[in-house]
């Protein structure tokens, strides 16, 4: 193997934070591809520019995605990265593993690839970093025969992901792990064979803490919530009062000012609570969500390209989340159908809703307009009315004339 002189990236082996350069060099000890990746990166650092060729279309038979093809412009100088494709493996819900499963993944990867990984990609996939085109079918056969399928790429449903949910969290309002697994299995075809206008991501968080950042990183954000009272253990509140200024840290920081504390008892006017989670996260032993559990469905978030960044916004304020999740699956299919009819190529669903309007989208998926969907009503008077809308307003007025009572 070539020995590369790497003074620039060597500097990144110093310091307390674990070093990715050390990781690359570990793999490089007995792997030609990883060794050339080290030399290649040093070259990038010395010239301040990347050397990956544009794009790269590779994959496995039967699928239209799952592998990100990559070739170096400097394949002659660094033959080990002439091909350096990435394989996305669909991670288990919540990123739970056994050592046996992980070691098997490593053994296969060492046999065919660079020995380098990302644990994990931002969407959630276990990323296997760097292999040659001719190895892809073998890699797929080895993994799929042992129960591991590819994740997704391209204009498809991308790999769904979730927070740890009921696995290890007292705040979750539904089974994020179970829902994510069920949706992933239900929509295997939509994941592996791109049929959409653009990518579509689903993320599931058990509460408004949103530990998988669904509101910012998923076209469909499924965020757990509840309808009912926050359960208060006032004995535990007393314990917190010993070390915490409850009025300053909890009551006065409540966004809806629906709490009070008289030095003995904490009270919550639950009807006015917006379930932001602040009080619950600060007093984990004293306060817990209560009542009916479910989720809020939000839609539309995306990064800046093309029209600017979007955060997902409320579409369905409350939905039950229980196996076999039929209501959510049906809702997702209706969303896709409308998106498919209305999108131009490379338009995310949030951009299409902006273009076509919420009414078109809500009517297509059968959800009525509700004040929970907006931060505030529109300011301008540029209002669309259908003939049916006017007829309905007129009918209401006719009825009011009869009864002598206004109905707004």
């Amino acid at each position, binding site marked *: 193997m070539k020995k590369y002189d790497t003074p620039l990236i060597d500097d990144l082996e110093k310091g307390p934070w674990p070093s*990715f350069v050390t990781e*690359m060099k570990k793999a490089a000890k007995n792997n030609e591809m990883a060794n050339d990746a080290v030399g290649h990166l040093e070259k990038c650092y010395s010239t301040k520019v990347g050397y990956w060729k544009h794009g790269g279309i590779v994959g496995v038979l039967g699928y239209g995605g799952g592998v990100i093809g990559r070739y170096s412009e400097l394949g002659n100088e660094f033959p080990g990265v002439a091909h350096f494709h990435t394989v996305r493996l669909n991670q288990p819900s919540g990123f739970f593993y056994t050592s046996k499963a992980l070691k098997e993944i490593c053994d296969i990867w060492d046999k065919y690839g660079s020995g380098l990984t990302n644990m994990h990609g931002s969407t959630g996939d276990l990323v296997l970093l760097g292999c040659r085109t001719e190895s892809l079918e073998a890699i797929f056969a080895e993994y799929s*025969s042992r*129960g591991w*399928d590819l994740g997704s790429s391209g204009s498809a449903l991308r790999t769904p992901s979730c927070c740890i949910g009921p696995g*290890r969290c*007292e705040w979750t309002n539904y089974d994020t792990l179970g829902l994510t697994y069920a949706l992933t299995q239900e929509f295997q075809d939509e994941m592996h064979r791109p049929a959409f206008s653009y990518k579509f991501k689903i993320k599931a968080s058990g509460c408004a803490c949103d530990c*998988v950042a669904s509101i910012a990183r998923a076209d469909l954000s499924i965020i757990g919530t509840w309808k009912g009272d926050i359960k208060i253990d006032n004995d535990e509140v007393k314990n917190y009062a010993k070390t915490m200024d409850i009025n300053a840290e909890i009551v006065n920081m409540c966004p809806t000012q629906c709490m009070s504390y008289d030095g003995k008892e904490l009270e919550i006017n639950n009807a006015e609570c917006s379930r932001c989670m602040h009080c619950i996260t600060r007093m984990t*032993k004293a306060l817990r969500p209560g009542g009916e559990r479910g989720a809020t469905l939000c839609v539309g978030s995306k990064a800046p390209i*093309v029209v600017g960044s979007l955060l997902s916004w409320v579409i369905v304020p409350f939905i039950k989340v229980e196996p076999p999740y039929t209501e959510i699956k049906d809702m997702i299919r209706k969303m896709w159908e409308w998106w498919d009819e209305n999108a131009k190529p490379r338009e995310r669903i949030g951009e299409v809703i902006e273009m076509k309007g919420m009414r078109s989208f809500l009517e297509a998926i059968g959800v009525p307009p509700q004040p929970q969907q907006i931060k505030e009503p529109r300011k301008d008077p540029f209002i669309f009315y259908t003939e049916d809308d006017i007829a309905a307003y007129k009918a209401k007025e006719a009825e009011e004339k009869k009864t002598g009572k206004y109905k707004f």
Partner: protein
Amino acid sequence: MALPQRKTDIGPPDYKQFLPPVIQKNYGNWKYHEVLTPGTMVHVGETGDKLWTVRVASPRLLSTDTIREHCDIAEKYCDGYLRYTTRNNLEFLVSDEKKLEPLKKELKDRGFKMGGIGPHITNVVHTQGWVHCHSACTDASGLVKSMMDELYDYFESKKLPNKVRLAVACCVNMCGAVHCSDIAVVAVHTKVPTITHENFKNMCELPTVIGSCPTRAISPDPAKKSVKINAEKCMYCGNCFTVCPPISIKDPERDGVAIVVGGKVNSLRSNPKFSKLVIPYISNEPPRWPKVVAAIKHIIEIYAKNAKKHERIGEWIERIGWERFFSLTGIEFTFQAIDDFTFMRDTMRTSSTFKW
């Protein structure tokens, strides 16, 4: 040797087989949790069962050798169970309290770093950079390593008013969480791209290229069977390059990074927020990006000194006002910080209430 039979559409393995017995038993029945140290916490079930978690820093880019080391440790102390977090840290799941301290000792002896739980700085969500991506205009891994070496005390021990989420994206595609983080670095180009016209007709779809431009700076150039770019309208996002290889935008001397602050995704106290631009340009300075690191550390120190307990950076800034943020940090306010795109009408100050 013959390959095993391939299977399609099987999806990921069922997560249930990877859950430790204590989780299977207490699934959905956790009562509360306590943070014991910045690197450890304990969850208590309704049954009284306890599960200790030890969180360990990871560079995200891992060799198979290191993953095997994770596995060996998990076998020794956790019956082989482990997980990774949504910010790419590693977590050991301990159901036997007797094994907790020995595990921590072994992790320390092996050089693993524990921390990141609670009001601290934890792992940086980041992207591929020069390690793997064709559109990267900086290196993500190198920036992250440089930032976290400097901020390491905040991971391991030093408290902040609330957690500070950091992110790095190596181009404005902003894969990951840059647009919603407390402080984030996004790499930017600063020059209008050039086009190798003779390759355009063979490699690009004209409508796709025109449609890729957020500012409509691209129009057809029939004489060249290509497109032209209006330099007055182009803000170098590079999206035309993404859909058309003969368009070239990389420039080692002009590519650099911008710093955005004040984003968050949770709804605690205030609604989720986008991060906003405060420093429009810093040159790429591999391998350590000293000015970027200094800027981030400076913002964190000013925040730590001025924010109220539990306030995230964005909440602190909205309380004191952006003009005060700029005066407290001494960051120069520039034309680039004034929005001239989608959000302009929402971002101007339509009142006379401001601080001197």
